[in-house]
């Protein structure tokens, strides 16, 4: 399966599987009923059609049949819904996701130190384990939708909603904002990365560490470029500058699949292009262009960010 598939037709989580089963059953039943009605219409339009007793058809096909079918569907769907992952904030692992225009801030609690680990645009979860995701928004209403895993709960400023996720198969599942939230709504995507439980533990441990120290003169210079450009007035890099919260935390930005909220693959080229002119690739984004700086320091900055794994 394509690693970053975003599809309701390829469920990889229990909720998504139940939802897609509902969809197929309703679609199938609807198709059968439609075909039957069309067949009756054809029979009724023949020249030599036999007259019927309307009362019988109204009572039978118009009342008894829908009552029976809808009751069966109601009972079945209620029974199936009971299989959905129970929504409870008491899961062993809880993550909080705050939606912002137009990216996702993701926070973990480090089991070792109890400190917060902040990252962005990527939710890592262990496979086969229920994970509670607390949802909030900082500006307008957003909605988190990862079609292969679950439904789409709204994220409302000033109110915490929640979602319990369970990924059944390892993989990378793309999701996106599902509630119009302004100019860049369409470019507000994220990835859920489902890992084997011990791989997840390793990942969390690495994320808990402060940013890697630059090795060699080039990276030393590039860290200086980060500070020269005043990137730290919006971005935090743990171990370098830790005050700002306006933009995504960049401590381990090089380890993420994409930058710009699911937009560009993370490598030196896209990092350089994004820094030189973010507005060209994501018009409306709040980050200003670093276009005034010379090529060498932009390249150095891109190299530094890429090495922050």
């Amino acid at each position, binding site marked *: 399966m394509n690693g970053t598939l975003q599809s309701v037709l390829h469920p990889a989580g229990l909720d998504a599987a139940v939802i897609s089963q509902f969809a197929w059953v309703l679609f199938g039943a609807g198709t059968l009923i439609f075909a039957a009605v069309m067949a009756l219409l054809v029979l009724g339009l023949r020249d030599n059609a036999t007259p019927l007793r309307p009362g019988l058809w109204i009572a039978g096909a118009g009342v008894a049949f829908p009552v029976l079918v809808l009751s069966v569907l109601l009972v079945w769907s209620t029974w199936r819904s009971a299989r959905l992952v129970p929504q409870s904030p008491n899961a062993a692992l809880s993550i909080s996701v705050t939606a912002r225009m137009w990216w996702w801030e993701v926070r973990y609690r480090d089991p070792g130190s109890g400190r917060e680990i902040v990252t962005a645009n990527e939710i890592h979860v262990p496979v086969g384990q229920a994970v509670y995701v607390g949802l909030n928004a900082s500006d307008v209403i957003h909605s988190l939708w990862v079609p292969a895993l679950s439904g789409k709960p709204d994220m409302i400023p000033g109110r915490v909603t929640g979602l319990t996720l369970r990924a059944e198969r390892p993989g990378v599942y793309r999701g996106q904002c599902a509630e119009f939230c302004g100019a860049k709504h369409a470019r507000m995507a994220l990835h859920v990365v489902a890992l084997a439980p011990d791989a997840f533990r390793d990942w969390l441990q690495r994320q808990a560490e402060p940013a890697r120290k630059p090795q060699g003169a080039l990276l030393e210079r590039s860290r200086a470029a980060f500070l020269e450009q005043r990137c730290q007035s919006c971005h935090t890099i743990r171990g370098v500058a830790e005050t700002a919260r306006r933009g995504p935390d960049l401590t381990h930005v090089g380890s993420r699949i994409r930058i710009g909220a699911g937009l560009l693959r993370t490598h030196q080229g*896209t990092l350089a*292009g994004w820094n*030189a*002119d973010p507005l*060209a690739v994501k018009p409306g984004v709040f980050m200003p262009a670093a276009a005034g700086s010379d090529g060498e320091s932009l*390249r150095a900055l891109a190299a530094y960010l890429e090495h922050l794994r």
Partner: protein
Amino acid sequence: MSSPGIRTASFALVLTCALLLSGCSKRESDDYRQPYQGGDAATGKKLVTQYQCGACHKIPNVAGAGGLAGPDLEKFGRLSYIAGGIPNDPPRLVAWLLDPPALKPGTIMPAMGMTEQEARHMAAYLYTLR
């Protein structure tokens, strides 16, 4: 002044100029007017999409490629120079794609860590943009 002498001289001059000019259109840099054989343009286009060159460059018919940090590549195959100063021929283009700062220290464009074969495919694609 004998007019035949002048006539002969000017004829010789015109002929020399004509020969020189005709020589101009027969240089080896003309090779890029032929389709470039060192790589596969279709694969190159896939790679250009995959490396997301569109983060900096406008590229026709590549989804989402509308970056403004680097030059528009719409007519790249017709350009005489890469990056405003490097003669545009296949070996140099491949070298450029592999390590731009090595050819032009001040450039924003970083070395992407692609293989030489990948660079050849991309070059083949870039020469189709005319």
